[in-house]
């Protein structure tokens, strides 16, 4: 909090603090409503045109090979797969993804993604934030951006959750904007739940509140107050929906089986469950690793299968619950894999051109946007950067792409880095 607030000019400080208060107090407000009051009419109209309410961000750790998945080739680089028809006449994907092919009408594949670096950490950072790594600055993921602009949605649930993806923090926003980190989707928040009977837990809480009184009375300090708010929030968490929303055991066994035993599958199921309960943004990180340049091509078959099942189940599940229209599912990765197979029989890092996928959330499915040459090396037309991907997601959620935020060092920031959303995805 300190570093950022002290860098702000007066006006943005005020607006920053009001946003922060909104987030901290867990006030549930209508999307954008509070935010729009002080905005110009153009900004308002841009901000209200939301195409979806939720985003599920599926992240392929390690660099997903594009030619083996969503950009299959018929040339010598094809590897062990070939293009197959999908439900859409305009889209072919790899034969390693037969279940997703059945849902081709939902998929919009962007085949001309590009990042500037072939290093995992840097490229992954860019794909998660839309910005390049810069010493001195920590950029937020999209979840905190959305919470900043639209306020916290539920008082007893976090606004964004990251499954198996570490704890990236709130970037330059205040800690209330931090995504809630979950390590193992099958455990959820079980380790953090009270392990004693409810009446005893409540007794302890009551005792603690009584002991806190004199301190809180002597120090009517915002930071102390913030803690008592966090205690209240946590107790609401325990008493409210959170424990259930995070608990996969509440899902019927057949449903859990549908998503498969791999942690990624269970993560996808948890994402659906969380979104259903009111979480706005969920990232699920692929537990396996696409970084298989030394392991040869057989590994790819397994990785593709681990993706194919859960991703397709998630889309079907969302659709059957009527949630697909308002939930944007994005599949992203840090870079592609070299179409040329290396000495070890694997593929190397390939930041020049690779694929990401959009589905649901008002996206026009059944199409490919952009293309690579027949050997999968480079894009044949315009390329899209991580910032375009973020601008696209922000645009879909109805976030104002043109509103300036002052982050650390007084530098201005825009969600999506002032880039254009990828065209052709939404009508």
């Amino acid at each position, binding site marked *: *909090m*300190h*570093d950022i*607030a*002290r*860098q702000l000019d007066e006006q943005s*400080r005020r607006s920053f603090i009001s946003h922060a208060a909104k987030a901290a107090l867990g006030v549930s407000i209508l999307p954008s409503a509070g935010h729009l009051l002080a905005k110009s009419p153009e900004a308002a109209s841009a901000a209200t045109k939301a195409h979806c309410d939720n985003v599920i961000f599926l992240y392929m750790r390690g660099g997903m090979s594009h030619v083996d998945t969503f950009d299959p080739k018929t040339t010598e680089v094809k590897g062990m797969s070939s293009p197959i028809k999908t439900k859409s006449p305009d889209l072919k994907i790899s034969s390693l993804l037969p279940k997703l092919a059945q849902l081709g009408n939902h998929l919009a594949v962007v085949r001309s993604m590009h990042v500037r670096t072939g290093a995992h*950490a840097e490229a992954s950072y860019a794909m998660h934030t839309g910005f390049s*790594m*810069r*010493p*001195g*600055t*920590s950029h937020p993921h999209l979840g905190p951006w959305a919470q900043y602009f639209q306020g916290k949605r539920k008082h007893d649930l976090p606004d964004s959750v990251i499954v198996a993806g*570490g*704890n990236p*923090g709130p970037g330059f926003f*205040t*800690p*209330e904007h*931090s995504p*809630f*980190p979950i*390590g*193992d989707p099958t455990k959820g*928040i079980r380790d*953090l*739940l*009270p392990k004693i009977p409810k009446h*005893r837990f409540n007794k*302890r*809480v009551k*005792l*603690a509140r*009584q*002991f806190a009184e*004199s*301190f*809180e009375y*002597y*120090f*009517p*300090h915002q*930071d*102390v107050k*913030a*803690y*008592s708010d*966090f*205690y209240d*929030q*946590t107790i609401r*968490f325990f008493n409210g929906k959170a424990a259930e929303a995070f608990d996969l055991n509440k899902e019927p066994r057949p449903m859990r089986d549908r998503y498969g035993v791999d942690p990624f599958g269970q993560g996808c199921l948890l994402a659906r469950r969380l979104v259903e309960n009111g979480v706005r943004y969920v990232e699920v990180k692929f537990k396996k690793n696409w970084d298989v340049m*030394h*392991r040869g091509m057989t590994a790819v078959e397994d990785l593709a299968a681990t993706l194919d099942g859960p991703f397709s189940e998630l889309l079907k599940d969302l659709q059957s619950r009527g949630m697909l229209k308002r939930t944007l599912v994005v599949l992203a990765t840090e870079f592609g894999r070299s179409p040329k197979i290396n000495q*070890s029989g694997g593929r190397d890092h390939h930041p020049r051109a690779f694929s990401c996928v959009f589905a649901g959330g008002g996206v026009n499915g059944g199409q490919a946007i952009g293309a690579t040459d027949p050997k999968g090396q480079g894009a044949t037309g315009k390329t899209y950067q991580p910032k375009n991907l973020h601008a696209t997601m922000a645009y879909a959620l109805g976030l104002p792409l043109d509103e300036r935020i002052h982050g*650390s*060092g*007084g*530098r201005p920031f825009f969600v999506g880095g002032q880039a254009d959303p990828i065209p052709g995805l939404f009508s």
Partner: protein
Amino acid sequence: MKPLPLLAIAFATLLFGGVQGFSQKAYTPSPERKQIMKAAVGRIDAAVGGMLQKKGLAYNPPLNDHMFMRRIYVDVQGSIPSYELAVKFLNNPSPSKRSGLISWLLGQPGHVSHLYNYFADMLRIQSKVPGTVLRTDAFSKWFKDSLQKNRPYNKIVYDMMTSDGRLWDDPASGYHLRDAGMKLDHVAFMTKVFLGKDISCAQCHDHPFEDWTQMDYYALSAYLGEMETKVAPPKRGKGNKGMYKNIRFKRDDFIPFVAKQRGLDPDNEKDKLTLRRYTNRYGRDAREIIEANALKVWEKKGEKLRLPDDYGYDDAKPGEVVKPRMLIGQEYKAWKDLPPREKIARWFSTPQNKWFAMAIANRMWAFYFGRGVVEPLHNIEVGEAENKVLLEAITDVMIDLQFDLKAFSWVILHTQAYNKLATRHKVEVNKDYYFPGPLLRRMSAEQVWDSLVTLMTENPMRYRAGDGDNFLQLVNFAGINTPKQAFDRINQFRTFKPEHVLEDSATGKPAFEKGKGNKGGNAPMMMTRMKGGRTVLARASELQQPAPDGHFLQKFGQSERNFVINASSRTGSVPQVMELMNGYATANLTQPNSLLFRKMRNEKDPAKRADIVFLSILSRKTTAKERELLLAELQKGNEAMSDLIWALLNTPEFFFIK
């Protein structure tokens, strides 16, 4: 020559107090220095007092013994006092016991641990050089030792800036190696940390709101123009040009040894795949170890820093060689013939450079008051300082004390302002503040964790990270010339676990022995299973830097030590509260065989038992109102006591410093 090592050991033992490794004595300055320190307290009191008077303000109320003790422990040794030490202080009848406690704590290893955390946050110290396998324990240990020996701060900085060689040649080289391969960013961090000047915007363009130009930035960086952080840095390009020239071992070199070890036949088609998988790992390990050997601070004579290709100002052309120039002031003529890095190191750390003294004085002030005399700490604007007299005073004091940080701490801790209750209300960062007392602060992540470790273990400083020499000996590939040697060394290297750097200061031996797994530890209590991970009950400064994902320290806002200096946070969150309610430490402390319960064992009177709990956790006794509240409750035995412990750990009084 033979008797010499023995003698040296005996001498070292005398000096540093034997197996403890550190002296346990109180901080005792020379009488001359003590004079300066006392005068300095007077000067600062006058500056603060004068300012308060001018504004018609008064100091906050004074601290009673309990409050003083709690504050001084948390601020100086970085954790709450143990029950025994609390009782000892409170029962001490001496009228000078407060000053005595300050001096004693400044001499303790706990203070080094706490101050190290503060610097580790600023220097963004990580357990490994980012992106490599090279552990940096040697640097951390060197830094802690420097603090313990109370080497002047400007000498420590000078040593870091002029360090040379690999980590095992010169542990201070860990400072430059931290930012290996990112020289320009390194310079930006350097000015923020050591000068309190943020010039980072000028890396890409002239600073929009300040005077720094891109040329200033490059001219300062040019002093490091010859400095390299890697041997034979790889050049971009195709084929062999992109590789280290001196890769001595390739994957296939390991085939015969792996085949023998695993009983695989290189000619058998089926075995071939398995063999490849194993040899790949040896190839990768060899590459990573050789990359770690390539990390070295050295000068490439004649190498010059050039302006970027997109340099867009009129004073020079893109790609032109930049002439070194100091950011403020000028080079001394006498330094004319010194190497460039020597020049910049001297310029930074000379007592004549007021920026340097001001930056550290202001940081140390903030360390104890929760706010600098000027903010932000990394970018001081003297012109905007409301407290100019005070700023000048602390800068002069730092110079007069010759950068003796313990003396400077002693001075601050004796000022009237520090010895007052924390300010009741929040002071916004953009509001002026005249220091009627410190700010109310939540403890840092490290202070909360170290306080819990103090509650959980008899001697929280018992297990300490060593210099990692056992690791460096494995990673140092000098003399490894044949694939067989490399194969054997890699096998040894793989048995190394991070906990092997921990030493038991009670015995002087490693806390965990190789090959015995975690159970081989001398203190099995230290390790416990927690969420599938292990938690070592040692102070934060001795654990992995920074603590891994999901660790208590991370939840409480320990800095990532990544791209931002002082990125630690003291704000709450839901996962944090969950951790205090239901996490490992609370579970440990509330069970009936915890250290806290053991301390109550001999006490039968429930009211007195409650006092032990209060003194242990909050450093005070129960109030009449609290006793009333507890009266009926406490007759119920262990369960009630455990509920009481839980409740106190979950009150703001536990984790706020008042």
